[in-house]
Every structure is written in C-alpha cells, then in structure tokens.
C-alpha cells in the first residue's frame, strides 16, 4: 500500500510534469494568463489523464502491441471530447476562455507519455493514482504560473484586485513573453530548491 501512495506523490513534486519532466509545456505557456485559467485547464487535464490511465491499464492485456498507439489516442480523445462538451454546457464562462485548448488535451504529451510509459505496464490502482498525482502536479504548476502572471499583468488574483486602484501593471506578463519569463524563473527556483534538498540529505 505504501508503494501505491508513493505513485500519487510522484507527480506532485519529484516527477512534476511541468517543473521536473518538462512535458506538455504548450498549454502551460498558452493558457496561464490568470490563476482561474490555470486551475480550469489543470483539472480538465487531471480528469482526462486519470480516466485514460485507468482505461489503458484495464485494457493493457487486451490491446495488441502493434495497434496500442491508435487505441490510446481513441481513449484519450473520447475523454477530451466529453470534458469539452460538459464544460461547454455547465461552465460556459471557463469554456469560452479555455475553448481551443481543451481539444488539444488529446495531443498533450503528458497523456500519451503516462499511457505508454506507465499505465500500459502497471495495475489499475497504481495507474489511477499516477494519473491523479501527475494531473494535480500539472494543476498546481499551472495555477502558480497563472497567479504570478495575473498579479503582475493585471494586479489581481482569481479576478480579485489586490493592488491599489490604478496601480501600474506589467502588461507584458499577460502576453507570451511573460509566460516564458515566469516559467524560466520558476524552473530555476525549483532546481535551486532541489539542489539544496539533495545537499541536505
């Protein structure tokens, strides 16, 4: 049981998809203009990742090796489309912002990566926890980047103004260059923290 729980925490820090493995960076850079967008995209990805991991793991003995990639893509695309439709129906505001990125979950390499490298070899419970952990690791990374960019670019966090009325903001942080700068600084910080931890242990 210990080992299973470890799978869950793996994605949160040690193998965080954004900060450690650095895969699936396209949505990380594109949607993180606000903290809310980060959470929305993260949770949508978490849902698709957990479901596809479970299904791929369940079917791992049924799916022939030669057609495994098309099978994974069908599974992932199905769950992405379900998320797209359900979000459009029940959270239209969020869907308007994330609209074009939701179908792109299909080609997010985190999903294919976990299906191919993990879920296709491991039992269901392990795969589910791995998907959940990776997804939540992705979510906190996106939310953090989104919050920093929203604070610097618009002077608010979660759409609530935190700076004085009319205070100067760096509009650039709402634009693509701000995404690269924020991600770069956070990656450097992550590396620094990990280097310290390694030295300490």
């Amino acid at each position, binding site marked *: 049981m210990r080992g299973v729980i470890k799978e869950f925490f793996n994605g949160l820090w040690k193998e965080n998809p954004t900060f450690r493995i650095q895969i699936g960076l396209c949505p990380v850079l594109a949607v993180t203009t606000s903290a809310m967008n980060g959470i929305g995209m993260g949770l949508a990805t978490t849902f698709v990742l957990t479901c596809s991991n479970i299904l791929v793991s369940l*079917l791992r003995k049924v799916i022939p090796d030669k057609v495994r990639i098309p099978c994974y893509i069908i599974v992932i695309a199905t769950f992405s489309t379900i998320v797209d439709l359900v979000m459009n129906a029940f959270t239209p505001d969020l869907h308007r912002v994330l609209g074009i990125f939701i179908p792109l979950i299909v080609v997010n390499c985190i999903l294919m990566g976990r299906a191919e490298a993990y879920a296709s070899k491991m039992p269901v419970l392990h795969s589910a926890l791995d998907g959940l952990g990776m997804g939540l690791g992705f979510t906190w990374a996106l939310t953090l980047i989104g919050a920093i960019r929203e604070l610097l670019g618009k002077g608010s966090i979660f759409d609530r103004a935190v700076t004085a009325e009319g205070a100067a903001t760096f509009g650039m942080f709402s634009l693509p260059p701000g995404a690269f700068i924020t991600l770069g600084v956070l990656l450097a910080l992550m590396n620094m923290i990990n280097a310290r931890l390694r030295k300490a242990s």
Partner: protein
Amino acid sequence: MNESARMIVVLTVIAMVSGGLLAAVYDWTSGVIAENQLKEMESAVFAVLPGAVRIELLDRGPAELVEDDPKASKETKQAANQVFVGYNEQGAPVGYAFVGEGNGYGGIIRIMVGVSEAEGKILNLTVLSHSETPGLGSRIEDAGFRNQFVGKTLSDPIAVGRDINALSGATISSRAVTEAVRRGLEQASAVYERSR
C-alpha cells in the same frame, strides 16, 4: 484467432464504444449548450436596452444587406437576420438591439448595440466576443471607450479620428468596433424602419 484479426477486432470495438459514448454525452449536453448561448444573447440585449422588460426577435426577412458582404462571417449572416426589439412594462417599444461585427487585430470582434426608439440614439454597447491582444486591444471592453458611442445617431459620422478617439496602441481594434457600429446601425435601422 490470428494476430491481425485480433488487432482489427480490438480497435473496432474500442472505436465503436467510444463513438457510442460520445453520442450519448452529445445528446445530453447539446440542449444545455444551445440554451446557454440563447441566454447569453438575451442578457446582452437586456444590458444594452435599459428599461426593457421583454424582448422580441424581429424577423429581418431576406438578409440581402449582409449576404453580399464577403467579409461577414457565418455567425453574422445568422445574426444579421436578428434585430431584437425591447418593450417596457407598458408594452411600448423602448428601442432595438443588433449584433455588429468588425475585423479586429486578432480576429472577428462581435458587439451588441442598443438603439433608442424615440431618437435613434445609441443607448449602450457591449462586446460579445473578441480575440484582441490582452492589455491593448482588449481595452475595447472598457467603459471609457465604449461610452464614446452613446448618444450617436445615424447622422453622426461615427469614425475614428472624427468623433471617436482610438485607443492608443490599438488603432485596428478601435477601427473595427467603430466600423461594426456604423455598418450595423445603417443595416439594423433600415430593417427596423421597414418593420414598422
């Protein structure tokens, strides 16, 4: 069962199950999605027609005005058939609202404009959708810019540099909105006049 037969069967079954699942989810959500879009449109109409308690869709008839406009998108061609008339509590018309569209910097900008019944003055304007640059073109949503259009009528020029000040750093977006207002007003007022 040999290997290639197994491959075909597995892939087919997975694709069929997925297709069935998607059909079910689509069936469940499509009604809600259509309802959301209608509600959104209606709340925009109420926002630009102060005093209106009931709105009615005016059938524009043949949309010959927009039909030959090569720049108009599919949505406009649909929306072009729609002029909404707002009525107050006494049942008297307070004005009409229309959807205007212009080519912005990052794509098509769609706006909703309300016009008063009595003098044909613009009452209010909201931006329905746009994909302009955040921090620059996105300021077309700010009240300071939008309020410049309030009170304008068909006899005003409604042009950037004449009676509308462009947003600094966002000339294209400002022009697109102004263009959408002027063109939309010309078309919608003609339709509204004809309907009376």
